[in-house]
């Protein structure tokens, strides 16, 4: 549905996007994850035609934004980072304006009613946008993006600044959109993305550093499996015994205190060595004080990956 090819964007000397390529399939909900300044908004602004890339192409449903701007834009609903609201209009008047602006061909009144109901604005049509809370403004921005039922919906950090309850509502809404639309949605918070998306692209400093299905992401990002163990007894004996376990690749002592030693055990991906470790310790008569998985959580991974890219540049 969306094909991004070798996209580069430079603002003067700053390279905001560095040769980015990815595709999004029809009906997919893609999470676009990256710290502030990674280039998320820039990518979205290029896909939607707000700005142009320095080089590279974007194709949406077979049409290219520079060649057929009107046709392409008609296929995209966009909620920018700051919702583009005319604050001295009422909610209804604003949505009517956006309906006309987007040249939507559906029956106007019914369609507006339907979209307002979907985002929970049906009671607020007559209110001035400037009097709305941040959460409600976000809904108006959402409604605007949904007008005309575009096949592609692009949401730039739709949950920033909302309270937890509103975030859950928005997340639900995004999930429900995924059934009928192709969605790209960006955030700098991993948990938000992993809760709502089928697939995640992690971007940092204008480069894609990971692109995988949500549940495979941590596997893709790390091929190291670690078990952290604390046991009482002779450190050398324990280390020897652990090395004998079939799937173990490396045993490293990470600390020792009060007659107990800590180890980091690396093992083959896919294996489970916990029972073997237990038997080994029983044989040695060394009580296990603690045993836990040392593989990084997705959150830690994300921080490490995006952090190291930043650190590498500095």
């Amino acid at each position: 549905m969306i094909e991004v090819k070798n996209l580069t964007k430079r603002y003067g000397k700053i390279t905001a996007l560095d040769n980015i390529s990815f595709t999004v399939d029809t009906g997919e909900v893609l999470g676009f994850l990256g710290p502030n300044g990674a280039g998320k908004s820039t990518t979205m602004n290029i896909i939607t035609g707000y700005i142009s890339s320095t080089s590279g192409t974007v194709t949406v449903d077979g049409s290219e934004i520079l060649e057929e701007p009107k046709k392409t834009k008609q296929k995209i609903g966009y909620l920018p980072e700051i919702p583009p609201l005319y604050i001295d209009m009422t909610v209804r008047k604003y949505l009517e304006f956006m309906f006309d602006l987007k040249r939507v061909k559906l029956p106007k009144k019914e369609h507006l009613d339907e979209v307002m109901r979907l985002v929970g604005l049906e009671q607020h049509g007559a209110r001035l946008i400037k009097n709305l809370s941040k959460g409600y403004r976000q809904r108006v921005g959402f409604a605007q993006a949904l007008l005309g039922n575009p096949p592609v919906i692009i949401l730039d950090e739709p949950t920033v600044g909302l309270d937890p309850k509103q975030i859950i509502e928005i997340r639900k809404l995004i999930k429900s959109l995924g059934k009928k639309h192709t969605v790209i949605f960006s955030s700098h918070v991993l948990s938000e993305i992993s809760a709502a998306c089928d697939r995640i692209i992690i971007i940092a400093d204008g480069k894609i550093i990971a692109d995988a299905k949500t549940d495979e992401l941590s596997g893709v990002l790390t091929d190291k499996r670690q078990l952290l163990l604390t046991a009482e007894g002779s450190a050398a004996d324990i280390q020897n015994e652990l090395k004998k376990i079939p799937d173990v690749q490396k045993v490293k002592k990470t600390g020792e205190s009060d007659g107990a030693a800590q180890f980091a055990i690396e093992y083959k991906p896919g294996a489970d060595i916990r029972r073997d470790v237990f038997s080994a310790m029983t044989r040695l008569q060394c009580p296990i004080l603690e045993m836990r998985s040392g593989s990084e959580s997705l959150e830690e991974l994300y921080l490490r990956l995006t952090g190291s890219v930043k650190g590498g540049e500095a």
Partner: protein
Amino acid sequence: MGAIYKRELSGYFNSAIGYVVLAVYYFFSGLFFYLYCFYRDSASLGYVFANMFYIVMFIIPVLTMKTFSEERRQKTDQALLTSPVSLTEIVLGKFLGAFTIYALCCAIFLVYGVVISFFAQPQWSVVLCTLLGMLLLGMAIIAMNIFISSLTESMVVAAVVGMAAGLVIDTMSSFSKLVPIPWVQFVLEKIDFLNYYTNFTYGILSIVDVIFFLSVTGLFLFFTVRVLERRRWS
């Protein structure tokens, strides 16, 4: 374009700008009308029209200051530029919106003409010709000020620069006489708005004057489209 035009119009009346501009225009035109036509007992609107030139130079920047600067500051331009409308349509929609308000301002002269007709016979051909000149002048200045608004994110800057540009145009005729270099003098005279406008107030309808204002309008609207286009690539 229709959607943008409609929103511009409602925008002028949702904020105070539409009313302020109408009120200022009606007030000063009424004042000049009273001073020249009643006080001096004249049936000619010529003086009134000539003086309105200065008022127009000041109210049009206020009318157009928001057109693009405020869109950019509030990021609402993102909605316009990602919708299936061309830049030309956006610029024209905004131009026509401002021009409609301005035309409503100028329409007051028809009322003054009618008022005069109770006391004397107004020269309708002169009145209508001057009105046409006023509309054409306004068009050009609106286009110029929309262009200025597209250059900045601050509507205050847009208004101030627009008024300064108005002052420059206003002083150009006196200034051009002071310049000793003939070709500079020639150019200044050729781009002096007042030169072209004054002909209308005498009731002289010349195609050159009409074309002058239409081209200035077209040129500035074109520049505005270019500014928006350039910004996408920057």
